[in-house]
């Protein structure tokens, strides 16, 4: 089987695109690639509209199956290809976009998904949202990015001490460490009086390598500071408020975007608002070598998330695979793997919002609003557990490690991926209308829904091959 793959950002453009809206699709593709390579020959596409059908038609003539996995949001997925097309997309809102406002008909995701006839996403939450819109029979499966295996080895159940001894971390770039500079210039009063303060450290320093010593109870979050969903203001202010008197508490924020000066200033200003505190915030605005990235994972006590919605949240999944309990909500993408057994669960409620790609900002959906009291409680309780209840900590670590295997190990994901692709390759690549009515009408959809192959009836694909190719 030929598996054509595409993401708007690829290995050539990732350095430039890091932090832009579609960048995370690149990382998801990277995680799926080894699995896809076990199922067929993987070809990376750079121009889907022109390359995909050319390759597909050539493959068909030679009797070779060909499918196209497009790692992109549906409004960027080609909808008129002959090759079976599978959007692989993340979605964290509770309604599926179903309106248009420009000349791109694919802004209406329900229309695009109906047209291509199947999709892959990364959480049961998204599967429910899609099925609510397109009917229970719509062929969509949740395949989390298979990150468990790469990080499972870092889980060390024999390690006794929960607190991290002072450990050096090397960063190529800037380290903004609240322990090393005065936060007074970053308060609202100072800003009003003297204007907004620049961050400490000069531009030239960002090309250099710096070291920071981290210790104690380390809460780590890895995210794009420009991504509003990550809700860093609650994350930072609640940390300072809850652990104000704890010098052993350290918040480590690794920025995944190199161009977010404004957001970094906002982060420092947020921490300034809760001063004075004895706890510490360290922002890593730079590049971590693989060994340093692994060291940060190893020394972290907890994985942290306070977001308003997630498609899946790769950093959280990675850290939990390595046996780090989480402080996190259990909504949207995280409901599949966050539980009281492996996390300090943060409550949330709903608030109105718009689909991110809708420039009208029409109120059509909902995202989450974090219950701050619950977050404060999670910080306090997690700190207590880390400092005085090692048995509970280790229990949660074990639960995180094992729970994430069931959720996103290669073995688990590969099995479902194989089954799903098997069904896709046996469908005709041309338009398949999936009615949103409860009773499907096309025989292909009957086979997919029941999950039984009924004695391997001849697929339309096979019939085409038997009839001989057109040219």
């Amino acid at each position: 089987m030929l598996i054509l793959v595409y993401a708007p950002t690829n290995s050539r453009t990732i350095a430039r695109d890091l932090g832009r809206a579609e960048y995370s699709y690149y990382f998801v593709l990277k995680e799926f690639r080894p699995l896809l390579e076990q199922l067929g020959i993987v070809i990376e596409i750079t121009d889907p509209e022109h390359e995909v059908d050319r390759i597909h038609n050539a493959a068909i003539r030679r009797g070779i199956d060909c499918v196209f996995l497009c790692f992109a949001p549906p409004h960027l997925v080609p909808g008129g290809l002959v090759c079976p097309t599978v959007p692989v997309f993340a979605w964290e809102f509770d309604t599926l976009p179903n309106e248009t406002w420009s000349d791109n008909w694919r802004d209406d995701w329900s229309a695009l998904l109906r047209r291509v006839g199947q999709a892959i996403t990364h959480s049961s939450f998204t599967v429910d949202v899609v099925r609510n819109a397109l009917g229970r029979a719509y062929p969509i499966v949740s395949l989390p990015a298979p990150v468990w295996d790469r990080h499972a080895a870092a889980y060390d159940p024999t390690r006794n001490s929960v607190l991290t001894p002072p450990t050096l971390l090397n960063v190529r770039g800037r380290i903004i460490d609240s322990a090393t500079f005065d936060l007074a210039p970053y308060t609202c009063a100072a800003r009003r009086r003297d204007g907004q303060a620049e961050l400490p450290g000069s531009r030239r320093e960002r090309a250099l390598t710096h070291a920071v010593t981290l210790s104690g109870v380390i809460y780590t979050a890895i995210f794009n500071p420009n991504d509003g969903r990550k809700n860093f203001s609650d994350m930072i202010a609640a940390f300072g408020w809850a652990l104000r008197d704890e010098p052993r508490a350290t918040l480590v924020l690794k920025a995944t975007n190199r161009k977010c000066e404004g957001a970094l200033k906002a982060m420092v200003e947020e921490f300034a608002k809760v001063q004075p505190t004895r706890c510490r915030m360290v922002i890593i605005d730079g590049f971590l070598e693989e060994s340093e990235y692994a060291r940060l994972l190893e020394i972290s006590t907890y994985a942290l998330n306070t977001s308003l919605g997630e498609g899946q949240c790769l950093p959280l999944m990675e850290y939990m695979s390595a046996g780090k309990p989480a402080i996190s909500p259990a909504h949207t993408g995280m409901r599949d793997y966050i539980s009281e057994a492996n996390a300090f669960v943060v409550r949330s409620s709903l608030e109105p919002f718009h689909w991110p790609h809708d420039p009208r900002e029409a109120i059509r959906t909902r995202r989450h609003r974090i219950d701050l009291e619950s977050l404060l409680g999670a910080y306090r309780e997690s700190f207590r557990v880390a400092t005085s209840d090692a048995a509970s900590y280790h229990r949660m670590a074990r639960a995180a490690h094992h729970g994430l295997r069931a959720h996103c190990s290669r073995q688990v994901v590969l099995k479902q991926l194989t089954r799903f692709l098997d069904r896709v390759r046996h469908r005709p690549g041309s338009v398949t209308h999936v009615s949103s009515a409860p009773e499907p009408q096309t025989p292909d959809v009957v086979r997919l829904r029941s999950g039984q192959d009924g004695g391997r009836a001849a697929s339309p694909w096979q019939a085409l091959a038997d009839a001989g190719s057109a040219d």
Partner: protein
Amino acid sequence: MSFLLYLGSSARNPEAAGRRAGAPVGEAEYSYRFLLDAYRDMLAETETVIEIDDPAQADRYHVHFTALGEPCTLLAFCPPNLAPVGLACPTVCLFAWEFTTLPTGGWSKDPREDWRHVFLAHGRSIAMSEFAAAQVRAAMGDYCEVAAIPAPVYDAWASVEPRRMTDGQARVLRIGAGVVRDTRLTGIGQTAPFWPLRDAPALQIPPVPPLTVPPAHVPDALLHPVHEIVFDGMVFTTIFAPKDGRKNWRDLVSAFIWAFRDTADATLVVKIIHREPESFLPHFENLLFKCGPFACRVVAIGAWLDDDQMRDLASVSDIIVNTSHGEGMCLPLAEFMSTGAPAIAPDHTAMADYITPDNAFIVRGTLEHNVWPHDPQAMFRTMRYRIEWDSIVEAYESAAAMLKGPPERRLAMSHAARQTMHDYCSRARIGKTLRRFLGTASFAETPEEV
């Protein structure tokens, strides 16, 4: 006994008001004016009451009345940092406060910015809510006597004749000069939002001269109404000053539309308190626009309503709505509930004193860090309530079910709202509590109903 009434204000004390110009200090100043007027009416029945506009006059009056053998007390209607201290005349500060911690200042040389200084100097204080009184007790112990005494709102509003959804009477509100924006007339909400925006039909708001005339001198023009609003179906009313960030109007409005997107007989009346309402309306209508299309109706009133017109509004309102982060007392809730309108409201801060499941549909909220509104440093020193938006939607839906449901429940809730307000803030009750607190032996015990 004689009482001196003083309205402390930031206008009189610019250096004490903090640098955030326009930021309300606790409850908005217009509420303190109302409170002062209500106390004057109540006390003047049996005591000597004089309003002063300069605290320096207080000691002169104190000398005068003391010589006559008459105790004299200064009542300061303002947040403690604006209250006079160091007078010979005994002073009591009446204040509203909706945050979880008392300001301790530190940003200016004025010792009153630490409210404990004022409470210590006065020795007695009246808070508008149990929520605020508890904070004073916790901070001051025996050094300051504090009572929770709300404004005596009930009597003036209990006489309003309801013209509610099921009463079968004409429900018309007549309004004088000012701006009224009714989605049934403007068409906002009939379609999904336009894109690109240049294709949207122009949303013109006719210019209205700003109201600079003080309320007491409203011209006769109001006798000749400019707008006539006819209500049908369920009328949900809310009253707020948009500049007041605590009111959380976006949640209130978006939840209404979310709940009643397909319900044509639901109306939200938004009475805006603002000197230049037309400056706020574009922000407001922008939100409506983004929520479209919707079948329900939103009527924004940016006009001054005198007492009679406010009572008219209360009489046609089925439900009074509040979704704020915190309240010092919330006069609109107390006023409208006194007319028998149940509420949609949180039960935190001051509202804990009167909002119950019997008289309201309760909106949930939990604490979040926040800033004292007059703190020029804008540091996180206190907390307020972060509202759960979906609980507002649920409250609207439950209220609609109640309004359209069996009359027994409707009557029970209406009665409960009225009764609660009677028990909470009738003039008789407040007067009695006040006299007991101020230790006025000269007050005759009136044989009023308990």
